[in-house]
């Protein structure tokens, strides 16, 4: 149901409608940006801009429904993200620092940034699988296509990622107070 307005927006954007494109962007940009945070870190904003500019440029050549568009969008996002990292590699943050970042985010109550930062700490194949499969909600086939893996490998990577996240102290710490609250 929530995809219906986006499907409508996609049709309008392909016809050149400015408001249609704005709706599409508002609906999909957060997912793109969060996914890119996982694979491109600090370059996520730049990579997201490049992704959307490429979408704008090639939109009239795209032919498909909203599901196909999401697959196309995240394939572009992945390529732009990896390009950006290759162009301007950033030294990987020490685990302690990122953990403290996550802790800070928790204190600031920015749940989304905290969650994405935790997912980003996973091994990259698990992190990508969790983001695309679980957070964004792409189906296995599309995710496997984007990552260049077999669907079985994607399932296993997502499962292992989630298992690791569940054992993460921050997740468990956060679980306790909420349970106490309930």
């Amino acid at each position, binding site marked *: 149901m929530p995809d219906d307005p986006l499907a409508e927006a996609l049709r309008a954007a392909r016809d050149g409608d400015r408001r249609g494109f704005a709706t599409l962007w508002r609906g999909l940009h957060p997912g793109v940006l969060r996914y890119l945070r996982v694979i491109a870190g600090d370059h996520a904003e730049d990579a997201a801009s490049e992704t959307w500019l490429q979408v704008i440029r090639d939109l009239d050549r795209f032919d498909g429904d909203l599901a196909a568009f999401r697959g196309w969008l995240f394939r572009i996002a992945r390529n732009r993200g990896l390009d950006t990292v290759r162009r301007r590699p950033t030294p990987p943050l020490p685990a302690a620092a990122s953990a403290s970042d996550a802790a800070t985010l928790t204190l600031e109550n920015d749940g989304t940034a905290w969650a994405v930062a935790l997912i980003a700490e996973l091994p990259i194949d698990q992190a990508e699988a969790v983001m695309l*499969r679980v957070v964004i909600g792409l189906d296995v086939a599309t995710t496997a296509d984007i990552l260049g893996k077999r669907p079985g490998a994607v399932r296993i990577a997502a499962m292992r990622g*989630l298992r690791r996240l569940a054992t993460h102290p921050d*997740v468990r710490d956060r679980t306790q107070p909420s349970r106490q609250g309930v």
Partner: protein
Amino acid sequence: MRHLRALLHAMRKRRSTDTDLAVGDPGLRRLIEAARAPATASELSGEKQMVDAFTAERKRAARAARRRRRPARIRAVLVPVTAGLALLLLTGTAVAARTGNLPQEAQQHAHRLFSALGVPAPRTGTPSPRESGSPSGPAPTPDLAAFTRCEAWRGAAPLSSHDRRTLIAAAGGEHAIGRYCEKVRQSASSPAKTAPPPAAPSAGTPSPAVPSPGVPSPGTPSPGTPSPAGPPSSEPPPKPSGPAHSGTQPPKSGRATPPSIATTKPAKQQPKATIPPRPSVAAAPTRVTPSGRPS
């Protein structure tokens, strides 16, 4: 670990409908929900910039499409027109070549290249054999102006210097005017078609036509006398001049007539005469004379 086991159990159970893999563990569910949370204001801060980029790109694409369409339209008109003109030109040339209407040299080329397709040789391709005696090649047609000039040259009317120059040029020299005018008179007096017929056989069978004027023996017997060498100088002049004209030029006619005989007289008997003269000189006169005398 209990949570994890529950999670794995849930994942195994829900493998087919795995949109919510994290259902089993509350902490994990919280994490995933946080990651899926609606957009924050900071995430959407770049909206106007991106929508402007979208609008600009659309405008640029529309302009480019218009620019691309214009040359395509010109090409759509130009290509068929050019092709049609080229086709017309080729067809015209082919038809002209087939009917032998090309300029002489072009026809010669076409004949050499496409004789297998039935392209004929140039019609006036070998004019020299007929008028081997006189250098004035291209004056076989009865020309009223030339006739008038010749009459004037003979003294019938005053000859202007311009006409005189034209006459000399047409004859190929002042000394050749007599011969030239004789030819003009003959072609003018005889039916207009007499000039083309000798051309047709000479072009069709060039080999027999060439030797006949060149070698005197086949040409000279035509007057009818059996002796080949002697008579032509004395006797022939009166005979051909008789049927054509009563008064010919006294000294020059002796030399002028042999070619004229070759052109006019054999023209009528060329189909018969061209073959016999070669095998025997004696056989030729017997056949020529019967048809030659009545005319």
